[in-house]
């Protein structure tokens, strides 16, 4: 009676741990040659006096081995463009209605080179890395800024 209850609890724990160990089991079985995609695998676990086997079916990998690292969310050209336009709209010398991705700072928006330096500095703050002077002075439209940032951050999407 007690042994049956013990066996039942052990089985449920082993089932949970088998689910956790599926990763290791799968990698181990992946090294061995596979006959078919679905095959039963026996997991033998012994605990004290109880000995039993449980069939664990391996289906097509529906899970992913997942490692957790800390990093920023991946950048896309969309997100870069949104952030650039947002920063530009916050700048007090720019009229937000007239702003477009192709508007030239000096010709369309009437800014001068000092303002352009300020804008590039705001971009540096937003994206967290320095833009050298030589390249900064060439960026004259928001589209060019987005292009430059995408190049620097290796964003192709």
């Amino acid at each position, binding site marked *: 009676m007690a042994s049956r209850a013990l066996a039942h609890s052990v089985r449920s724990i082993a089932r949970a741990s088998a689910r956790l160990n599926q990763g290791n089991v799968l990698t181990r079985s992946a090294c061995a040659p596979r006959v078919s995609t679905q095959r039963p695998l026996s997991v033998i676990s012994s605990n004290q006096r109880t000995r039993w086997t449980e069939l664990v079916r391996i289906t097509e990998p529906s899970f992913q081995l997942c490692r957790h690292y800390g990093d920023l969310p991946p950048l896309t050209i969309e997100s870069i463009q949104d952030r650039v336009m947002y920063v530009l709209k916050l700048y007090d010398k720019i009229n937000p209605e007239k702003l477009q991705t192709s508007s030239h700072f000096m010709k369309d928006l009437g800014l*001068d*080179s*000092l303002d352009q*330096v*300020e804008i590039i*500095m705001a971009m540096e*703050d937003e994206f967290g890395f320095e833009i050298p*002077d030589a390249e*900064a*002075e060439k960026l004259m439209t928001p589209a060019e800024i987005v292009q430059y940032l995408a190049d620097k951050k290796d964003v192709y999407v």
Partner: protein
Amino acid sequence: MAASRLPPAALSLKQFLQRQKVLGVYRNLLRIIHKIPDESDRRYMRDWAREEFKRNKSETNQDVIRMMITQAQNHLEDLRKSLSLAGC
């Protein structure tokens, strides 16, 4: 052959280099000002720097510009030293 096709408003080499220097000083100044811990001080200094540079924007005399660049660099060094003394 290329010189004859340049527009009349193009800068000479010396003027171009000087313009680059001015923009470089402005950039360094803004970077240092960004490090100032107090928000209202930072805003005041930023407005001051903007004012100073904009006021003398239309200066064309090379020597005067050179003097102003030196002045700006002195200000920059002062700011840098005070910031390092203040510990940031």
